[in-house]
């Protein structure tokens, strides 16, 4: 069976090693005799042990990817360009960007119904889910429905 995650495992392994070293370092820096509690009750005790466990697994993951398939493939410019120009990646990026912008606008002074219906209509039209008029009607209905249920029924203030 071909080993599929040759490159990914190597780089994620390195990321895990980095993160776990950071966790262990932070755990070590946490107070060890807080409020006169003994050192074994220190807040960094369990996080340090878990960090150590994660570090071990990160090392195993990295070494295993090297052992199974030799040195990892480097990222080539052509690979990155191919990934970025893939229509699927574009769709993903667009959806994420629109959703991020939507979240950025929430919690400000713009009415929730307005922000939500614009976001919904924009996504539906951009991704050709339905026609513009239908998209606007659905978006408005959903936004008003959510606002009524949460705000009026459950008395939750809208973002």
């Amino acid at each position: 069976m071909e080993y599929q995650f040759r490159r990914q495992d190597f780089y994620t392994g390195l990321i895990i090693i980095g993160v776990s070293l950071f966790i262990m370092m932070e755990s070590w820096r946490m107070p060890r005799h807080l409020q006169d509690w003994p050192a074994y009750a220190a807040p960094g005790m369990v996080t340090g042990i878990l960090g150590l466990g994660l570090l071990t697994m990160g090392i195993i993951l990295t070494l295993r990817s090297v052992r199974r398939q030799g040195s990892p493939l480097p990222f080539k410019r052509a690979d990155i360009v191919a990934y970025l120009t893939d229509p699927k990646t574009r769709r993903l990026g667009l959806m994420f960007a629109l959703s991020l912008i939507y979240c950025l606008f929430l919690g400000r002074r713009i009415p929730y119904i307005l922000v939500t219906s614009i976001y919904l209509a924009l996504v539906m039209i951009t991704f050709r889910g339905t026609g513009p008029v239908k998209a606007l009607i659905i978006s408005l209905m959903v936004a008003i429905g959510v606002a009524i249920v949460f705000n009026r029924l459950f008395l939750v203030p809208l973002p």
Partner: protein
Amino acid sequence: MELGPLLIFKELLKLFSPIILFHVFWSTFIGMIIGMLPGLTATMGIALLTGLTFGMEPRMAIVILICVYVGAITGGSRSAILLNIPGTPANAAACLDGFPLAQRGEGGQAIGLAATASFIGTVFGLFCMAFFTPLLGKIALEFHSWEFFWLAIFGIVICGNLTAPTDPLKGWIAGFFGLLVSLVGMEGITAYARFSFGFDQMKGGFALIPVLVGVYGIAEVLGGMREVVLPKVRSKVGRIIPRARDLINHYRHILRSGVVGVIVGAIPGVGEDVASWVSYDFAKRSSKQPEKFGKGSLEGLIAAETGDNACIGGAIIPVLSLAVPGSAPAAVLLAAMWLHGVRPGPLLMLEFPHYIWEVTAMMIMASFASLVISLSFVRAQVKILLIPRPVLMPIVFVLCVIGSYAINVRVFDIWVMLAFGVIGYAMRNYNYPAAPLVLGVILGDMADVNMRRALIRTAGDVSSFFIRPISLILIILIILTMISRTKMFKRIMSLVKVKVKKIFGKQR
């Protein structure tokens, strides 16, 4: 002392009110739609509805969530049969025989059989739940800090092992990451804010629901929008009500899958998808016609659907007795119970002795509602499958956002949800299972507080972690789980098998 069945009946009578029946039916229906639509899972459905039912009376909210759970697992077989796309991961095994049946024009029969098998599986699971939860609860009373620490570690290890069958290491990494995520913020012994980096919002830690919604919901939305097309329903539905003989002839598969489902469900974090595959595999091995499996075998379909639904009851057993979820949807259910003031765990039988019977009664209502809806609104439900993803997914995203926000009314939770959505998406692409992460988030506090508390009790002596009987059993189980996937262990086991065969062969 009153008998269990009588207590269940009493609770059932208490639940029989028009308003609860109304909630049971709409939530089961919504659950089925969530389950049916590829990309929306039971976990995500319960997480979304947790936000929606936040302001409701606790009993009503839990009824709704249980109905969504049962409905989603049952409904997932619709798209598996008609589209060859499992509605939820739990229904993946149903594709193998459901879709060939639909292609032969027997889609209606397949749907009817799947619905009935699901109903039987759920009922089997809930009765096992009612019977075994009090027993496990009694054992759980013997658990102390040492055992709870090891239980948390065991949960992560076995969940990682079983949800990442090709690479358990990735499952364990996900589990450890989940444990660490849960330890962000103020801890329970000295109130020290860990990993908060001076941010006030981080001092409160990451709330469970935004993390869950992110890992399951947002990751699904992003993944769903990345794909371009969705195949259309090709099959005619036809006759739906199943023939009694189809069920009677396969009673062995139903019974076996029920047992398998409950056992798999009771294992922390494993869940319905594994139950369904294991049941399917067992049915194939024991069948007189194994060659028909994958080509439209009724046995395969019945086994898969009974197994995943029986798992629901099984997954709730550890939720109620140990506060350890048996599956990802059960993890959200546990979180919802906490939100509504119920404290599942060893003390549940002492604090709320009737709660187990109440949950059983709720599940009975959910399973009946699910059966009725499954067999009566098939054509209407099939039309919902035709909703295009670009219309559905943004609506789901809006619901994810509001659901995460509503729990604590914090915009910070929306960002937590989004961040974990990205992490969940990356994990999925790199073959890291999400279930151990979720289980880790649930069990992190249990592991942390109990380890430190145990050390305080023994003045730093670690030997108690290794010499107490239950701890020792758990340690052995952890080690066995970890080494069971190594080549050396497999080689030793095959050698042992050969030797045992030789010994018994000689005796004959």
